[in-house]
């Protein structure tokens, strides 16, 4: 079925005909839906031989954290003799392309790990099993989990996931570049005023062609973990309200933040326009940008590039300190049998025990999902502690919004890009986009 998906991995043979690609994908999905009737309630016997339950688990941890995931799964399988987890790891884009048709066919994995922001898209279509039974079981110690990450798994009053990982974003700053610009390399900016002054000082156009050779900040506007929304939040604005019910892109606070930072980007060139997330990382990694707000997954890459960087909470805006929280959640297939769902919960419980979380944090570089691990347990990896610290001020981007992709890719991002490219102003474009977002939010109620 993968062959049908026009993924970037597909070989571009001469002229891949569009209708064939799409058609095959649709047909594959459809024909599988056709057999869903016979296939969905799979005989439990095949996978419960000798009282042992096997559950399939899909996720996209192909990065440096892969060994940590594999290690914990192996440990779980060895720790008891009732449940076996068989895991399949593929890159995130492949994971989602595979997940859609396989769930559509009434199959798919028993357990999956997916970005919490994606949960409502699936939960609203009834393909995920509510996890409230997990949360109500005191033995699972769910009250010890990072609360914003738990809240992000909610959809219309029910929880559809349990945090598998959690992190905040922090400000990375290049100490060497701070020193060269006459800034104290050990004091990161703490307020917006300091942040903006530093960004301007660190932006250098040495050959005077109007295009800086060095940027103060790498700020991505598309295909990225949310960076601009942190700035909107800092001013008391946002894209959508925390409860996912109200569009806030047209809010005066959001527009004010956009004007302020948009002016710095457009006129003072503190960051290039049009960066994708990977471009922004590359810019910091090649010492072309002195600051970036991003997650713990970049620590290894930046260290390997020989960059002496510091980590701090993103500078606080007028509305107080805030950063982005992001999480991958465990979710259980609605078609999975009760026995298997129970087994999946056993695994999730194991994953979120103190011991497992310590191992996870040290192995993956992500902070633990639990709030009751002492910093002393984690001293081996100082980054882990740093990324866990601002958990209390973390907001989830577009949490509890069903049409995540549509709000983000179709409405918000183009409006932001138009403003940054001078094709309109925030006062004109943001309220327009906001009204369209509101329409979508209203229709999901």
């Amino acid at each position, binding site marked *: 079925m993968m062959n049908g*998906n*026009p993924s*970037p*991995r*597909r*070989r*571009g043979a*001469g*002229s*891949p*005909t*569009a*209708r*064939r*690609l*799409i*058609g*095959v*994908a*649709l*047909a594959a*999905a*459809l*024909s599988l*839906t056709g057999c869903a009737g016979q296939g969905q309630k799979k005989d439990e016997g095949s996978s419960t031989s000798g009282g042992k339950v096997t559950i399939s688990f899909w996720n996209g941890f192909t990065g440096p954290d892969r060994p940590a995931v594999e290690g914990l799964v192996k440990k779980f399988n060895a720790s008891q003799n009732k449940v076996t987890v068989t895991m399949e790891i593929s890159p995130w884009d492949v994971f*989602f392309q595979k997940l*859609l*048709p396989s*769930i*559509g066919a009434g199959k798919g994995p028993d357990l999956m790990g997916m970005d919490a922001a994606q949960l409502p898209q*699936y939960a609203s*279509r*009834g*393909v995920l099993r509510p996890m409230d039974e997990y949360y109500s079981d005191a033995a699972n110690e769910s009250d010890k989990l990072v609360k914003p990450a738990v809240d992000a798994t909610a959809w219309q009053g029910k929880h559809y996931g349990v945090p598998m990982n959690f992190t905040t974003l922090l400000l990375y700053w290049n100490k060497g570049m701070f020193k060269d610009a006459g800034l104290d390399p050990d004091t990161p900016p703490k307020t917006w005023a300091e942040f903006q002054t530093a960004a301007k000082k660190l932006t250098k156009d040495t050959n005077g*062609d*109007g*295009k800086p050779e060095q940027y103060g900040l790498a700020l991505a506007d*598309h*295909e990225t973990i949310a960076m601009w929304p942190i700035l909107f939040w800092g001013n008391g604005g946002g894209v959508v309200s925390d409860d996912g019910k109200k569009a806030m892109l047209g809010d005066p606070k959001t527009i004010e933040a956009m004007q302020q930072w948009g002016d710095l980007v457009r006129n003072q060139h503190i960051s*290039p*326009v*049009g*960066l994708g997330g990977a*471009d922004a990382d*590359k*810019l910091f990694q*090649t010492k*072309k940008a002195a600051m970036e707000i991003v997650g713990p997954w970049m620590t290894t890459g930046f260290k390997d590039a020989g960059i002496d960087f510091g980590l701090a909470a993103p500078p606080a805006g007028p509305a107080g300190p805030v950063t982005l929280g992001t999480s991958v959640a465990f979710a259980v297939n609605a078609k999975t049998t009760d026995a298997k769902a129970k087994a999946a919960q056993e695994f999730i419980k194991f994953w979120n025990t103190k011991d497992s979380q310590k191992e996870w944090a040290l192995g993956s570089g992500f902070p633990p999902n639990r709030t009751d691990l002492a910093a002393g347990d984690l001293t081996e990896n100082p980054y882990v502690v740093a990324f866990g610290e601002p958990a209390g001020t973390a907001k989830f981007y577009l949490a509890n919004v069903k*049409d995540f*992709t*549509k709000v983000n*890719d*179709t409405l918000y*991002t*183009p*409006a932001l*890009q*138009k403003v940054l*490219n001078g*094709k309109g102003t925030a006062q004109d474009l943001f309220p327009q986009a906001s009204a369209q977002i509101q329409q979508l939010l209203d229709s999901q109620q």
Partner: protein
Amino acid sequence: MSTGIPVARPRYRGGVAKRRQARAAWLFLAPSLVILGVFIVYPMTQALYLSFTDYDVLNPATWTGLANYRELLGDEAFRNALVNTLYYAAVATPVSVALALGCALLLNRRFPLRGLGRTAVFLPVVVGLAIVAIAWGFLLDPDIGLLSYWLGKIGLTANSGWVRDPTLAMPAVIIVGVWKNIGFYMVIYLAGLQSIPRDLYEAAEVDGASPWQRFRNVTWPLLANQTMLVTILCAIATLQAFDQIFVMTHGGPFFRTETLVMLIYRQGFSEFRFGYAAAISWALVLLILVLSIFQFAYFRKRAVRY
């Protein structure tokens, strides 16, 4: 095949032979027909059915009649993608044909390392477009790209870079698309050039025709068949531009490079609207069909036999 002489053949024998011939023909055709049926005709009819439904893959399709097509007519995103697609095709097709012909003429001459030259032009065809697009993305990166660096040296500084600039992004993906495919069309032209009888050139030379006149009056007219083939193939391919756009710009900035196939992908795989995506696919099928019919009619009058 008739010889023009009516011969009274025994009917039954002819019938048997014919039937046997027909059966053999069907047998030979069968593998292709099965593949065509299973992988093209069947999916296309399924897609046609889905285009009249509301379908998100996760739940059964519900019949909505012409709703998707009606939405199509008023959809800003569809109009934008249609314009982008036509722009892409209208630029990329003639440029590809001209460059392919130019390369073929050049590489048809005898010179040292000709094989290397031909390989160099053809190589991008066999390399995956996604890989190629990633490489070009690096070359064109305004901050760390080699090409941007060289262009900067001669004073051509793109402020936010080719791929990120709303007006330059489309030319960038067109350049990559053209560069990728001309090798294939060049090979078709090379074959055409080699099938033109030498004596025609000799005769032209004897008559004192200049190189330009020889090209204008011998080469170009006799390549009419290849030009037809290349133009039609190229138009069909460019109307379906997808891969390098997906990798280089993902349709951005703000949908400036979103072609119809990109839109189909976005509607289907990221917004879960497979019914609507199928309707756009069928609109594209019809567009290509109509354009191909016109092209075919135009070129058929100019077909040559020699």
